[in-house]
């Protein structure tokens, strides 16, 4: 078993479609998909992000970080939310992504999430992180 993150990427167009979709309808569509993931025993976590217009961008290209309000402007593919699923293979992660009730124009990126057991276990910072994960029940 391995953890994969399905990273949702919106565009201005898909975001506009999402905003014009009745909220109840969206909740039902997404809820049905989430229920499928839960029933299959693969869902670990899922979160969606707030309006990118309310976000802040910190740019590290200069000597000091430069902070600007508003959406991340360099690309139209804005990060909108994620699913974290525990599945047998990359192909299974892809298959779940295909079934996602995604809005036309949006994209999902699928990336494996390495477990902490893949890091050197005797490194003091990994030991500390492990302790923190235990205390807080993090994955």
């Amino acid at each position, binding site marked *: 078993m391995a953890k994969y993150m399905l990273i949702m990427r919106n565009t201005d167009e898909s975001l506009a479609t999402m905003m014009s979709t009745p909220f109840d309808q969206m909740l039902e569509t997404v809820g049905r998909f989430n229920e499928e993931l839960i029933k299959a*025993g693969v869902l*670990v976590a899922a979160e969606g992000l707030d309006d990118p217009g309310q976000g802040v961008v910190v740019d590290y290209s200069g000597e000091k970080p430069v902070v600007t309000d508003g959406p991340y402007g360099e690309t139209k593919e804005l990060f909108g939310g994620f699913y974290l699923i525990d599945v*047998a*293979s990359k*192909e299974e992660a892809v*298959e779940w992504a295909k079934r996602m009730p995604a809005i036309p124009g*949006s994209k999902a990126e699928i990336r494996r999430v390495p477990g902490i057991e893949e890091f050197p276990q005797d490194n003091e910072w990994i030991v500390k992180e492990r302790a923190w994960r235990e205390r807080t*029940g993090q994955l």
Partner: protein
Amino acid sequence: MPQSADGRSPATADPSGAEAARRAVEAVWRIDSARIVGALARYTGDFELAEDVAQEALAEALVGWARDGEPANPVGWLLATGRRRAIDAFRRRSARDERYALLGRRLAEGGASSGAVEPPERADEPPWDPDRVEDDVLALIFIACHPVLAPEARVALTLRAVGGLSSEEIARAFLVPVPTVQARITRAKKTIAAAGVPFELPPAEERRERLGGVLSVLYVIFTEGSTATSGDVLLRTDLAYEAIRLARMLAALLPDEPEVHGLLALCELTAARFPARTGPDGEPVLLEDQDRRRWDHSAIRRGLAALGRGSAAGRGLGPYGLQAAIAACHAVAPSVTETDWDRIVLLYEALGRVAPSPVVELNRAVAVAMAQGPQAGLDLVDDLAVTGRLSGSHLLPTVRGELLTRLGRTTEARTELELAARLCGNARERAVLLRKAAALSADRR
């Protein structure tokens, strides 16, 4: 479903394309095989036929998807192909029956079997009836774990028909030859057909008992996967996780059954210790010596949550729930000494009443020794020894040897540990016992 125009990838001759297609088929199969087989079984009313045609559809997908690309609706494709094969089979049967009819035999049956199956094949049909598919999957689980089947047949059929594993995967997991698994599954399907077992949920009065049978099959799969002392460790762990996946499916289908949550909790809490239970050279590490930091804490959290759901049903915990509650005591304890042994004693007492067994009594004796001291535990072990119910097992002399050691009765302890080593069938465990016995001799010198 966001399926774009490029949903069909162009035909490709390179082997990586075939490999990619195989992996794509396997991914769909893993997610949906139970629903596909369940829907086909309800459609045909014939579990054996449904499983056969589902396997035919899978085999066709492996060839066809590599050649033509993955279809836009993979599940619909598999189900439609399975249905077509089922119709072919019924046509063959009715043709045969008509021949028999011409001979003047079995006229009525032949007519009935050909008339009932012609389906309305419509392109816009959903792959299955959403109101029925959950019951179909449940019926599938119950039929695969049916009491007319031998225990090893139930295990093989459940992994195949519900879990979607291939004969090769099952054979690898159980360290048996592939033909053995194939024969076991074929025979199991024929037994179901011969016994006339209908494809339906068991009647209410049998439901509880039949559910117990299902849970024990899942638990056998789990324990087979969690005994890492033989075979390929990783593969067998996969088998344990397969059992957990099936238990999660069952818990979602039967949310009001406390023992389903109990079993899921027991499996999650046991699996949480997997990362810590073997040393660098693969030798077993006892619970008391495990580095608890290595336990899988998200599995512990899931296990505790499942146990909570089992308790919340308000019908009391059954044997699986009680074992999960004991595992939970260990899971939340920072060390052996800081474990709530009084609670574990109570839980073993309860377990001994709902599921009496000498092994449970022996475990209770160990817990009593931890809670009240070694003498109290030894008294219980001696009572158990008198009954002779564990004679021939290395477990009783192992525990007796440990308790005598703690009481400082080293000569008796050594005799017990040496007896335990002689009775123990597992080489690694035997080595540990002999080492302990030898350490006692050294102490005395």
